């Protein structure tokens, strides 16, 4: 594939802003998200992370500016076609009626089949189920699971939705504080799976509260403050003590160690 065509395969926000009434939750944000990278959004509560995420999910049309996907402005009426290449893992998803774990995971394939799931759809679900280590309760009622187990099932569903990259363009995986309900082992497993899932045609964007995890797992960080981008770039430069003090009003030290960086609040 020639370089030029590949260049258009990205997610781009151009001077995007969104307001509720008079209050601008996000204002004048411009950024290019490239495939093959994992981006993390950081910032204090109310900085506009969730609103920006909603715009990146191609669901919320910006009040000003634009969102471009694969080189074209987003058409907010073609929900169905975006659902095949963009999936979103929300903080906590609960269901209103009893369904088995398998049935929940299969929902990820809904945008891909018309009425009956194919063998291929079932095969993808099986792979996701074994990948996320939820095999042993795949027949159980989702509602009887613990919070962490539920989140793993939802992650499996979200992955099956975009299991295969599109023939043209790139796929988007959005994660909204995905690991707050997981215990330590599964937090690291989760980030490991994300890393494995991220290939040359995948854009991963996550909201993460734990700055240390962001520091070590993100390829690029976006630090938001009061609805605007405060700093972007490599995690270690964005989370420099000076930036953190201005945005979070906290004093920190950044320790660079072999293999990992550590942010120490004091």
């Amino acid at each position, binding site marked *: 594939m020639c370089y030029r065509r590949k260049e258009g395969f990205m997610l781009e926000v151009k001077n995007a802003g969104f307001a509720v009434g008079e209050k601008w939750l996000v204002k004048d944000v411009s950024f290019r998200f490239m495939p093959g990278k994992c981006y993390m959004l950081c910032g204090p509560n109310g900085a506009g992370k969730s609103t920006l995420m909603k715009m990146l999910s191609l669901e919320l049309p910006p009040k000003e500016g634009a969102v471009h996907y694969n080189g074209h402005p987003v058409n907010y009426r073609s*929900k169905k076609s975006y*659902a095949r290449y963009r999936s979103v893992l929300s903080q906590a998803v609960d269901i*209103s*009626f009893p369904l088995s774990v398998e049935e929940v995971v299969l929902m*990820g394939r*809904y945008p891909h089949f018309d009425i009956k799931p194919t063998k291929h759809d079932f095969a993808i679900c099986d792979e996701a189920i074994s990948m996320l280590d939820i095999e042993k309760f795949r027949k159980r009622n989702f509602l009887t699971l613990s919070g962490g187990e539920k989140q793993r099932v939802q992650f499996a569903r979200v992955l099956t939705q975009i299991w295969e990259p599109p023939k043209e363009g790139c796929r988007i995986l959005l994660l909204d504080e995905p690991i707050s309900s997981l215990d330590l082992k599964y937090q690291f497993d989760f980030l490991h799976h994300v890393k494995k899932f991220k290939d040359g045609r995948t854009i991963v964007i996550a909201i993460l509260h734990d700055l240390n995890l962001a520091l070590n797992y993100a390829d690029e960080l976006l630090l938001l403050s009061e609805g605007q981008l405060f700093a972007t770039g490599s995690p270690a430069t964005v989370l420099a003590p000076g930036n953190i003090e201005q945005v979070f009003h906290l004093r920190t030290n950044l320790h660079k160690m072999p293999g990992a960086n550590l942010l120490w609040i004091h």
Partner: protein
Amino acid sequence: MLQQSKFFFPALVIILLITIVSAIAFGAVYILPSEMGSAIKHFFQGKDPASIYEGVFIQLRLPRVLLCAITGAILSVSGVLMQGLFRNPIVEPGLIGTSAGAAFGASVVFVLAAGMSKEVKSIAGPLLVPVAAFIGGLFATFLVYSLARSQKKISITSLLLIGIAVNAIGLSGTGFMSYIARDPQARSITFWNLGTFSGASWLQVFITFGVAGIVFFLSLRYSKQLNALILGEEEASYLGVDPERLKMKVMILNTAMVSVATAFVGVISFMGLIVPHVLRLLIGSDNKKLLPASMLAGAILLTWADMGARLLLAPAEIPIGIITSLIGAPIFIFLLKKFNVLQEKGGFYA
């Protein structure tokens, strides 16, 4: 729970057939299965019924049992659809105003048509009445829906309270119409409020079958989207479903079939509550299975209830709504308590 044997659906079909045959057999007069066979044979040969029993079978018993079965299917499927849209197990057409609105619409046309010429009456009976019922039902449902909704969320407490108010308006309107009515059937307020299958005719059977058939077919087509709604509107939207459009379409379809049934048989409450609840415990909530299962089980249950209505105090007849409310209302209270619905904690079926 969610494990179901492959005999589940065949078993339901067989039970339904047995139910229908026994419902036809038992009544004020007993009809032998051999008489049913010969009556059908004579009917298709274009001959008159050979005996009074065959006449009762063709003209009274068969249309009544069929109308009853299809109404049971309609009310149960409607329960599944409405519960799916509101994401709550305690919603059914009798509670959210659909039935009361439909009954009011139907009674208005019933009463107005009674004062007109015979020609108007003959069209109004089977055709205008269901249309008026549909308009009334749709209006009442949307009224409850939009009043109960605030900040894009439907609080179940306000849904139930507003449902009570709109039901009261619908029923008092129907009561007024029956009071000023001349037609003896419309005069009976129990007909509208408690429901009965005693006036079933073949034309009603055909119209109800037609509408229900179309609605069942389309709801099965939406079963995938309805499943996605179990995750919540936001997640459904990420899966490519437009929740607002889906809700609008399903609400209109649902109101159409409930209104037609209500126009012919009156308000039958709580059916839409019992069947979906029991089935969810047996086979889970996948609408692809739940909708057809509700169709069959609803038909079975209401046919038995109607048999009870005819036989318990024979030769007198109890309005069927008394029986369904007697069974359904305790289940409703049980659901309210079990799922802490009024505390709005959610966590149903956990």
